[in-house]
């Protein structure tokens, strides 16, 4: 909720800022020395995954999904990273622009580490047409090293089983698929996302992207202090992302690993505003104490007076 609220505040501000500060549509000049800087981080599937995750966190809100041209309508419009115009830049230029920022484009010098910035560039490059160029790398080939991918794309059914290893509260998803002769085979290299069900939406678990290993396992550690329901039950979800989220397979699990939710029912607590049954003790004691003293004294007086006709010995 808070994020949505922040977005509502931030969007008009950004839009205004882009109009006020970004009027200069002059080309963004990058110093020649910076232009030629090479990406020092070696490309790998892990790096690309990391870059994707970072892109989704820091860049997507303005630049949109690469290739879909759905960035924010700012002035000037944030360039789609998959566009030819964008991909025409050198890695050095991209890096420089992320470092310095201009207009509505924030300065990420201190926000994202250098390694991470280079990882984002690796990820963005996967949308470039010139994948075989000097800067781009064979990400596809790398991904293909994971055997499950091919199986999945062929539409072979896949099954996800979620369980908890109680010893160290690891949440484990086991993915199995069907082998060539119909026998169950572990599905390796499949992206698995873990969540805990909350009131509003699902809370993602674990850092970065989890993929199943050769045994078809993906795991994430379950945080110990998550609030559950009154019995401490949590609803855990594992989702295998298949075909870019089109053919997801998921499994849910109820587990008493949360902190039991203690509902504080203030109408049951003693208070001045509550019902008579939950009146503050000091009021009840004062009330009945005073009543006892006054009526007791009156009773004492009456008893004495009623005895006055008795002749004293």
């Amino acid at each position, binding site marked *: 909720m808070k994020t949505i609220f922040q977005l509502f505040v931030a969007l008009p501000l950004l839009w205004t800022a882009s109009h006020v500060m970004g009027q200069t549509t002059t080309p963004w000049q990058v110093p020649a020395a910076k232009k030629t800087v090479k990406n020092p981080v070696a490309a790998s599937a892990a790096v690309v995954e990391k870059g994707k995750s970072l892109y989704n966190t820091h860049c997507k809100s303005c630049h949109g999904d690469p290739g879909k041209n759905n960035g924010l309508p700012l002035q000037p419009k944030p360039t789609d990273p998959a566009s030819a115009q964008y991909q025409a830049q050198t890695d050095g230029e991209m890096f420089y622009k992320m470092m310095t920022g201009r207009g509505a484009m924030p300065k990420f010098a201190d926000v994202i580490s250098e390694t991470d910035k280079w990882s984002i560039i690796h990820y963005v490059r996967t949308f470039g047409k010139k994948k075989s160029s000097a800067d781009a790398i064979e990400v596809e080939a790398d991904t293909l090293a994971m055997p499950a991918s091919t199986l999945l794309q062929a539409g072979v059914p896949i099954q996800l089983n979620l369980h908890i290893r109680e010893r160290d509260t690891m949440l484990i998803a086991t993915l199995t698929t069907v082998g060539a002769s119909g026998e169950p085979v572990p599905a390796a290299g499949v992206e698995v996302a873990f969540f805990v069900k909350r009131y509003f939406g699902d809370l993602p678990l674990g850092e970065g992207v989890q993929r199943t290993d050769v045994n078809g396992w993906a795991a994430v550690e379950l945080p110990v202090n998550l609030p559950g329901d009154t019995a401490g039950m949590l609803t855990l979800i594992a989702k295998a992302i298949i075909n870019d989220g089109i053919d997801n397979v998921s499994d849910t699990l109820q587990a008493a690993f949360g902190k039991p939710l203690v509902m504080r029912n203030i109408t049951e607590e003693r208070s001045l505003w509550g019902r008579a049954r939950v*009146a503050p003790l000091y009021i009840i004691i004062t009330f009945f104490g005073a009543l006892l003293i*006054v*009526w007791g004294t009156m009773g004492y007086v009456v008893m004495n*007076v009623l005895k*006055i006709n008795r002749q004293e010995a």
Partner: protein
Amino acid sequence: MSVNKLSPEESRSVLNKIETDLLRPLTHHKGFELWILFLALVFIVGGYAYFIQLRDGLGVTAMRDYTSWGMYIGNFVFFVATSLIGMFISSVLGLLKIKWITPISRIAEMIALAFAMWAGIVIVIDMGRPDRLLNVFLHGRFQSPIVWDVTVVTTYVAISTLLLLLPLIPDAAIVRRRLPDLPKWQMKIYDLLHLGWEARPDQYQTIRRSMRILAILIIPVALSIHTVTSWLFAATLRAGWDSTIFGPYFVSGAFVAGAAAVIIAMYFFRYNYKLGDYITDFHFNRMGQVLVLVSAVYIYFNLNEYFVPAYKMRTAEQLHLHEMFQGHWAFLFWFTQIGCLAIPTLLLIFKRMRKPGIMLWLSVLVLIGAWFKRLLIVVPVQQHPYLPIQNVPESFHHYVPTGIEIMLTFLPIAGVLLIITIIAKLFPVMPVWEIAHEKGVDESMIK
């Protein structure tokens, strides 16, 4: 304790005169039937009004969503206030060993009991569904001043009854001996009440000791009954009620109303019951001084209650205070504050004003002012809610009591007079034995 002991012969003749004087009204009652008839008439008219209210609901009153406490509650506060004088005269002045209160102590007790009893009934009159009264006891919240109010009013009625009955024990024995020809049912009451009184020293000791205990006990109870009544208002946030001095402000105002009521009753009993030898100018002079004292304290509290908020004039208070000082309620406000409080107090400072005739009229003025003052405390505040209702009906903005309400205000007043009349008809209005004792009559003869 007696001033000068009389010889047995003198004792007999003095006691005889006191008994004759004080018991005469029990058998001689010119105009008594007419007076009862008048009260009965008020009861019939009031009873019919109550029937209409029961049948048609509280809609027959002028009370609406804004002014939901009207004349009934004002009347209730007035009744509770006036009843406090019993505690002031027989307890506070009595414990201070002030002698002149002896002939008026029972008058004060009668007023206290009658007003306190009817205060409880007035609250029931204000209920739209009196059949749900029991719910206050079944589901009442100890946190609410309403429950304390019901409790302390009941307790105060009980103690006042005891304080009235205890000194009646020797008097019942005297009436029994002196007037054996009274109707049988009446004699039964004296038989029951005299508890075998033989004027023995140990009996005197028991009565005096018991009265002393009750006199002490009634002080906190009486203070709490009117303090709690004030908290019914002060425990809210409404501008005009949200005041820290409401407790003492109400209590001091109560003594003003009660003292005025006692003076009026004194005047009536002195002339109608021909008790000029007992309620003398001296007693009026003293009661006048009491009225000046309590009025001065009350004026002081009024200054605090009105001029401190008026000096600050917070927005919410402003609306209320302007209506009181120069708006809709201005005439009634200044009439009660100046005409019915300041002027009588100023006049009574002078000794020549403290004479029965003048004091009667000044007391009537003070008592009327005291009644309207309660209305001014209760009603105007409610017409300026913090959160006004939108498109509120015109009738919510004003409060003019309906005929039903006026009739049902006179009914309890007649009820109070009826109780006082009945007590004064059945028993001497002064404690015969105490008066005789003060005149030096041998105590063992008073039986």
